[in-house]
């Protein structure tokens, strides 16, 4: 394996904690309180032992007993209060750390190239920002303060025993080798088994997803053998991997269950005490103290195991958080310039996605879109159309060549300014949870109600907003616009683009998912949006672009043809073939043999 070993889990978590100094201070206080609490509790038990021990005197003094009992009370209550406070501090600090990390991540995302963010995908980012950050909680809130109580308390117990009666300490220490063996067995990271288990676990999940998502297909096509067989195989593989793991961990698990409990230690102490008492080496009080605090070191081991688990659990998450935080930002210009006008130009643009080696996605693209004109990009899927569209608002930087907006290299324009100049309307309309008005106003937070309404009217959205939605502009759209139909969502994003007053508009397959009755409305809306602006359209339905100023045919990362519709059709090249396909597809109907000539019915 040449893969670089990831840094230790705890280190990574602590590094993240260090990003939030206020949180770190609190955690230190919590750990300190934990130490004080552990020591106080031991002091309390020592006092209790002494209170009872006083009774063994020939003439026990009631005052001494009372004094020791008060000491016990003070020690136990102080210990309790400190632990409570430590836990409280640590939890609060941990919740605060979550906020700080999430804010830091939001900041990084805002500075990263937008294309990188898109390639990561909202699902993966959500997992990091939400779940991975949350997974730190157990380490930060439970494990770190535990270092105070879980380590200080047993040490204090051993110390107290040593001071009061070192011989009994020796008896307690007899059990230490056993404890060490258990601990080393337990903290052994069965990397191979763990990995096998994790892979098997992921396979089960994948098999379930496939089984469930494919169920409609399964039911119509499969008698169940094939897909259920795959599911059962994945489940079986998981079971086997677990069986293997269980077999290897059986010994350590049993050993722990048997020895990492108080009774065996207490038995050793009692057995050791018999001859010691007989010889008069120790006093009954010492025995009582041994029985009260002697098992503390052993009892501290079980939580230590949890600690290892917690750290292993959050290690992967912490590393993912770190990786995202370390992503380089999109370089912002030192001497920013403002675009002049709304012309768009690509000059000798070469671009490949960082993760992909080999052929560039775009290989020497020259494209000139004068201000106020419409340019359409067509070509097979994978030709690079969407990449061209995304280079204009600088979702990525080109490898070589220049992208200019308003005559200025996009790398010399501050990204907020650039994004204000370019309105994007994509296939998948983006809506936020909130009201219709909020969604339209997103493009220009200062817009008045009248301006919002005017934009909605221009986008053919006003009528359905007022007539069909329960509370008009104040209707909730639901998460990601789920309460609206696809066509409604699309028109709201168009209204937003209109309101933004961006002089450049990029449309990527904006009508692909519209149903027939909406299609006409959306096309009207788009016509109003594009009027007087510089427009780049990516279209599959060629009939929508026959009148544009310029059509560029993209294939394999190059522009293979450009011109107006009529000229390209006449030229008989690539576009002419696409157009022929398009007309043939449009003429198709089921049961074509029985179909009268469709053109005649139009």
């Amino acid at each position: 394996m040449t893969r670089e070993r990831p840094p230790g889990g705890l280190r990574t978590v602590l590094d993240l904690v260090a990003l939030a100094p206020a949180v770190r201070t609190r955690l230190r206080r919590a750990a300190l309180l934990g130490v004080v609490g552990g020591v106080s509790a031991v002091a309390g038990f020592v006092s209790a032992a002494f209170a009872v021990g006083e009774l063994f005197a020939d003439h026990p003094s009631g005052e001494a007993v009372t004094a020791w009992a008060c000491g016990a009370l003070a020690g136990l209550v102080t210990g309790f209060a400190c632990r409570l406070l430590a836990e409280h501090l640590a939890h609060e600090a941990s919740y605060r750390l979550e906020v700080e990390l999430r804010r830091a991540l939001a900041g990084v995302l805002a500075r990263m190239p937008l294309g990188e963010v898109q390639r990561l995908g909202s699902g993966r980012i959500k997992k990091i920002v939400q779940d991975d950050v949350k997974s730190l909680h157990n380490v930060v809130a439970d494990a770190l303060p535990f270092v105070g109580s879980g380590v200080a308390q047993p040490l204090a117990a051993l110390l107290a025993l040593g001071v009061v009666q070192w011989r009994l300490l020796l008896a307690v220490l007899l059990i230490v080798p056993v404890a060490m063996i258990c601990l080393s067995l337990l903290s052994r990271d069965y990397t191979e088994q763990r990995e096998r288990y994790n892979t098997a676990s992921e396979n089960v999940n994948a098999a379930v997803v496939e089984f469930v998502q494919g169920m409609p297909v399964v039911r119509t096509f499969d008698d169940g053998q094939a897909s259920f067989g795959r599911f059962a195989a994945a489940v079986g593989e998981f079971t086997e991997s677990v069986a293997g793991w269980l077999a290897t961990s059986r010994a350590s698990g049993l050993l722990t269950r048997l020895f990492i409990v108080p009774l065996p230690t207490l038995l050793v102490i009692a057995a050791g005490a018999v001859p010691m008492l007989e010889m008069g080496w120790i006093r009954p009080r010492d025995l009582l103290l041994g029985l009260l605090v002697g098992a503390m070191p052993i009892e501290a081991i079980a939580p230590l195991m949890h600690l290892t688990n917690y750290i292993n659990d959050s290690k992967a998450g912490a590393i993912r958080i770190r990786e995202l935080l370390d992503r380089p930002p999109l370089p912002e210009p030192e001497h920013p310039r403002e675009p002049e006008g709304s012309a768009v130009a690509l000059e000798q643009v070469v671009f490949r996605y960082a993760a992909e080696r080999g052929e560039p996605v775009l290989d020497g693209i020259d494209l000139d879109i004068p201000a106020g004109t419409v340019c359409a990009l067509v070509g097979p899927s994978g030709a690079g159309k969407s990449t061209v569209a995304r280079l204009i608002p600088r979702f990525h930087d080109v490898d070589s060549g220049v992208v200019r907006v308003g005559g200025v290299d996009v790398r010399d324009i501050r990204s907020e300014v650039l994004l204000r100049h370019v309105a994007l309307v994509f296939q998948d309309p983006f809506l936020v949870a909130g009201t219709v008005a909020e969604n339209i106003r997103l493009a220009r937070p200062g817009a008045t109600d009248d301006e919002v309404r005017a934009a909605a009217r221009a986008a053919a959205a006003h009528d359905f907003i007022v007539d069909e939605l329960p509370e008009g502009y104040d209707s909730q759209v639901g998460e990601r616009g789920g309460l609206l139909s696809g066509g409604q969502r699309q028109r709201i994003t168009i209204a937003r683009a209109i309101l933004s007053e961006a002089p450049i508009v990029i449309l990527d397959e904006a009508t692909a998912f519209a149903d027939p009755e909406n299609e006409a409305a959306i096309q009207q809306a788009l016509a109003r949006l594009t009027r007087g602006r510089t427009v780049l359209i990516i279209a599959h339905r060629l009939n929508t672009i026959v009148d544009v100023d310029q059509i560029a045919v993209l294939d394999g990362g190059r522009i293979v043809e450009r011109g107006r519709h009529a000229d390209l059709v006449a030229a008989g090249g690539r576009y002419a073939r696409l157009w022929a396909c398009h007309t043939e597809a449009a003429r198709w109907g089921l049961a074509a043999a029985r179909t009268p000539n469709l053109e005649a019915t139009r």
Partner: protein
Amino acid sequence: MRRILRLMLTAAGPYAAQFRTTLRVSLAATLVQAAAYASFVPLLAELTRDPVRAGRAWLWVGVLAVLVAVEAALRVREMAFTYDYWHLVTHSTRLRLGASLRSMPQQELARRAAGDLTAVVGANATTASGAISSLSTLFVQLVTVPAVLGVVVLALDWRLGLVLVAATLAALPLVRQVQRRSNAGFHRVDEADAALSGRIVEYVQGLPVLKATGQAGADSPRLAAVLTDQQQAQARSNRSASLPVAGAQLLVQLAFVILVAVGAALVLDARLSLAVLVAVVVTAARFAEPLSMAATMTKLFEQSEAALSRVDEVLTVAPLTVTAPGAAPTTFDLGFEQVTFAYDGQDEPTLTELDLTIPERSLTALVGPSGSGKTTITKLISRFADPQHGTVRLGGTDLRTLRPDEVLRHIAVVFQDVYLFDDTIRANIALARPDATDDEIEAAARAANAHEFVRRLPDGYLTRVGEIGSALSGGERQRISIARAILKDAPVVLLDEPTAALDTESEVVVQQAIDRLVAGKTVVVIAHRLSTVVGADQILVIDGGRVTQRGTHHELLDEPEGRYARMWAAQVAARTSTG
């Protein structure tokens, strides 16, 4: 508690007997453990005597050692369940869940998100068996140890016993509160988490807009409120649940000190033997442990109960019933008679008193606005669910008299979204007929215009779909799914706008493939682009769950005020206008 036990026994399935035995062993082990603590009393009595009677003391040490050994032996048996059966319980639970998913009515299945079901079969199944194997025995200890120790102390000295019992009684309501409070807290945190998740996705997808308007970055106003809200929800939930725990722990600590004080006073008055006091103090020190565990346990219990319930819920969904098995259909016309259907949990029916007849080997198109009920009609044809009123017939046979898989044997469906399994292309085509020969598969692929591109793949028909995944275009995937349907050669074909999302070049070849698939079949197609169904034998305009118009294209155009004529006009306008 009884509910959890019932859920556990259900989830343990074939291993319920072993599980019961384990619970008994666990109880026995705990009783022996309590006896071991009790044996400290005579032992300490000997040890605190002056002079020490070593012989008798050793005897009691021996007794203690035997009890510790017996407990250990019982624990080994108790744990054997974890090591021998945990994975088997998980295994059987998962397979039973899988079987349940297969036989569950499609409607029930569709109601559940794929992610939720993955969680049930994945994480919930393991949590459930974890609960069965470890949590149950922990619970036995948690309840039994304090109870038995309490009895032991009471027996030794009723006054000291009363102190412990009083403390326990005072702590019990607090422990109960933990449960109630953490329930409320978890719920509130879940909500805050969900809100935050939604906002994060939104933030990522909306970055271009948010950046343009200065709303992106660490101080984004779209995030600030939910972040704080989530922090507060967590803090509040933690505080409210930890207070009763803290109270209970404080009570136990106080009880311990009181015990020492009262005991000492009694000894001073010579009303209690010192040995008993020492034994009681040692025993009482063990009291705090189970209580402090109760807090952590509450959370685990919640999770386990939730996991067990979710597993149980999926296991107990009843399959669609088959009334008086009917004759297998031999003709393949379709009929709806006065069909009314509402989805589960909806008041408004999606289909209302719907009548329709689809003759054998005819082509019927369903058109209408989205949400009008078109898809529901195709779902009822494939017995996705049964209508509340009326009858759906295939070849004259009431679908309710046929098992869902019998119904589906006669139906091939081509969906808009193609689902290919992570298996070879061959296996994906052969899904309906695993025993098909290579020649039959190739013939189906040729008819579906898929043979040419499959042949060019690195391993031809044996190429795994998962390995080339995104290398297959939408059109290619669609052709594989059509080949699958052609191979099945079912007499009824249901099409759901299969060419909607394809690019121009793919569209033509997919269209040709569909032409071959539907030849000579009874076809029902859902169409958005009306131009594709102009040649249908009948077009049904569905609106609001009813058939509002029916006829051929020309007949419907002759009703100029009708919905169909308006839809046609709108589409012709959209097609000829330019963007």
